[in-house]
């Protein structure tokens, strides 16, 4: 059998451009994890249901297990590694998860971090009910979500604290 043709793909991940040569069927999640080798993005179900693989594509949350890497050519992608502060400290959402014990095994967590990071950009002051709805598309098997809801509210608070002059 002939080898699979490879395609030139440029992914800008967390502000760093990566030139990759990938088969057309390579999933974006696999490209991020095994080619770019940023393994913070996790794969829980491979059919877009659990949300663990959520990354931001040009700022919008998407399921990286449902997209081929070639279709993301030229896009700017943010993973949980990219949600850190520029100095490497935990970002607001990550710090809030730490404060609120919003993670246990941590496997689903990167998908929540990216989802909530995007959400707070447009909803800086959510109510508890809105916070619960904001995470309604991500599965977690450990926490029962209560502390994740609390972390959404705490993250909004931290963001305000950090942006205060």
């Amino acid at each position, binding site marked *: *059998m*002939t*080898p*699979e043709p490879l395609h030139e793909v440029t992914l800008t991940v967390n502000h760093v451009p990566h030139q990759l040569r990938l*088969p057309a*069927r*390579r999933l974006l999640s696999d490209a991020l*994890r*095994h080619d770019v*080798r*940023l*393994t*913070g*993005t*996790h*794969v*829980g*179900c*491979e*059919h877009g*249901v*659990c949300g*663990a693989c959520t990354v931001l594509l040009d700022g919008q949350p998407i399921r990286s297990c449902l997209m081929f890497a070639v279709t993301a050519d030229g896009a700017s992608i943010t*993973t*949980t*590694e990219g949600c*850190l502060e520029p100095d*490497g400290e*935990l970002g607001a959402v*990550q710090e809030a*998860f*730490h*404060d609120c*014990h919003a*993670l*246990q*095994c*941590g*496997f*689903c*967590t*990167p998908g929540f*971090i990216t989802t909530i990071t995007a959400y707070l950009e447009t909803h800086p002051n959510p109510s508890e009910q809105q916070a*619960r*709805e904001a*995470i*309604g*598309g*991500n*599965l*977690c*098997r*450990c*926490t*029962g*979500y*209560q*502390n*994740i*809801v609390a972390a959404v509210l705490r993250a909004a608070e931290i963001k305000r604290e950090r942006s205060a002059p």
Partner: protein
Amino acid sequence: MTTKLFGQRIRRVEDPRLLSGRGRYLDDLGHDALAVAFVRSPHAHARVLDIDVSAALEVEGLVAIFSYDDLDGKTSEPLPLLIPHPALTHGRTPYALAKDEVNHVGEAIVMVVASDRYVAEDVVGLIRVDYELLPPVVGVERARDGGALVHDDVPGNVAATMVQEVGDAAAAIDASPRRQRLQLSIERSASMPMEGKGVLARWDADDESLLVHTSTQTSTSVRQAIAAKLSLPVDRVEVVTPDVGGGFGVKIVHPWPEEILVPWASVRLNRPVKWVEDRREHFISSAHERGQLHDVTVGYGDDGRVTGLSVQFWHDNGAYTPYGLIVPIITSTQLLGPYKPTAYRVEFASLYTNTVMVTPYRGAGRPQGCFVMERVMDAIAADLGLDRALVRERNFIQPDEMPYDHGLTFQDGRPLIYDSGDFPASLSKLKQLVGWDDFAKYRERAAAEGRRVGIGLACYVEGTGVGPYEGGHIRVETDGSVVVSTGLTTQGQGHQTMLAQIVADELGVPMERVRVTTGDTRRFKYAVGTFASRTAVMSGSAVALTARKVRAKALRIASNALEAAVDDLEIVDGHVQVKGSPGSQVDLGAVAVLSNPLRYAFDEAAARATQFATPHDPDQPPVAADDEPGLEGSGFFSPTRSTFANGMHAVVVETDPDTAEVKILRYCVVHDCGTIINPMIVEGQVHGGVAQGIGGALFERMEYDESGQLLNASYMDFLMPYASEIPHIEIDHLETPSPLNPLGVKGAGEAGVIPVSAAIAAAIEDAEGVVITAMPISPSELFDLRRAREQRGEAR
């Protein structure tokens, strides 16, 4: 002593790494390893006639294809029966690759090794297997009738039958003023951790050693199993558990076929080899739990006191029984909860079916037992028109009866003796938390608005911290940092934080100086594993005892250096000092230097311990005959028996009059796991357990069709709760210390899940006036119950 960390809400030390993407789960390792995919049986029961790989051989990137005939030595024998039991007369385990028969959809037949997973799956798709179909046995009823057999040599599909009895239950029931019989059932669910299983094996031919990473709940035992199966000296095998994305029981089973095959292939190919389970594989080739039918007869007095209880149940163990009879034995014994029926008989049959095997999932047989007992309590209350809480109270074991011996044998082979607990106090707290006595008024107000609401409660007792033992090793480094190792594994419970709290307190060092590793056989070789809510009890106690040893040694060495009596010394903030005289002190790092007499000054600290730097007695050896160099020590904890935690849940539900959807309005928990090390972590465990319980009560079931196909083997179809399905959970604690370990702790990991189906069934029953005997319950099933009641002409 500095501020005590034990009992504090300390933020987890694990978090920053996991939050910033620096966690290392199995598939984050070995990027350059060869990838494995399996041909798995599409049939529930079949003979394998022929395997044709000819169409696959030309695929670019294919490295090897293995089937049963390629296996050699002990790898070609059935996998071990991990927990033998005299009653398990017909235990059966699978082969690593199917020999000539497959017994469930998903059983591995052919292993493909290739350059990456995409290619491996291409090859899988080109391999043709011919089967002769055999009649599938699906569900307890089909298994029980014995018309078709899963294993030809297991008559009636019966793996085991077992009876335990205290007193003469039949006579006691006959003599009771009142009697009831109930048929109760619970369906299959599964652990479903967000990360499936996975194995990475790296054979080093030069060193003749094997390094295996696996997403397991017991690295020490996987190591022994791999060495035994591959006929390698145990000394040449190490097993490391990396970060694990949840376990909930399924990863305690070992060795999985893949845990043998991947290392075997790595040795054979002399290459790193990795297999990562995908979600569909996890559904059809790991393990499930919960499926049981129960036939219960209870006798009781007019006051609601149970005088005799007889339970017969049928446990669907799936196709194989590697984990023995643990789940049905736990149901048999933990069914009793906080109650004391005067006479009790329990009998079960563990039955084979052509489905995925059944092994413990968080709760491990207790949710079924609790469902049975609590349904009985509610049935008695309904019959007598008594308050449901009152009936429970009248049957409670009282605090002054502790320790309470049930006269039965528990899952660890030891007597079922409750060590402590105050059930009336727990119930009183729960009633107050949920507002039990005021609920009637709330119901009336709701009814006036056309709403149906109901309340239910359920109580459980959970044997935790089972033996035989756990251990720990602690070393104080010369920079004053403290390295703690324990052999059992971790999968999200915050063990590194909890164990660091204990060690920091015991040693008198700041917590930031303590680093904990778990589940790495290179660091600690003796352990049992993480299951049965045992880490705080077992490893917590082990590291506490070890820290006390290391502390004693530090004080002994420091007493020479400070020329003070040991009894006059204390350790504060990482310094040994004379009590009341903090000016006279030596830091623990310096004590570690002094503990190790040196010849060579490899760094500044070491220079202080060299032979010309320290005063010494020329007539004594530098290391005393009964001493060892280093400020370190190992210790073990092995309790006489399990310690029993308990809890009580109350739930308020509202049912939709039209759609029969169930909405949880309030969920209240009173939890007693003895002394609490970190309340934040304990509450997190309870939250997660309750959420899984709600999944099991209202949404999750394994939908097998009659041919043994699992129809909902995906997250799209198997409904696990999202945030929208889980209510805010209100928690109150009672702390009744255990007398069985030095910390007074009891396990907390599984607790939350146990009484949820029982409590929700009771609440729905209360709201609807229909009798609920099977869980989970879907809106359409509740709708059918309503309709049946209406057809009988009964009022709600």
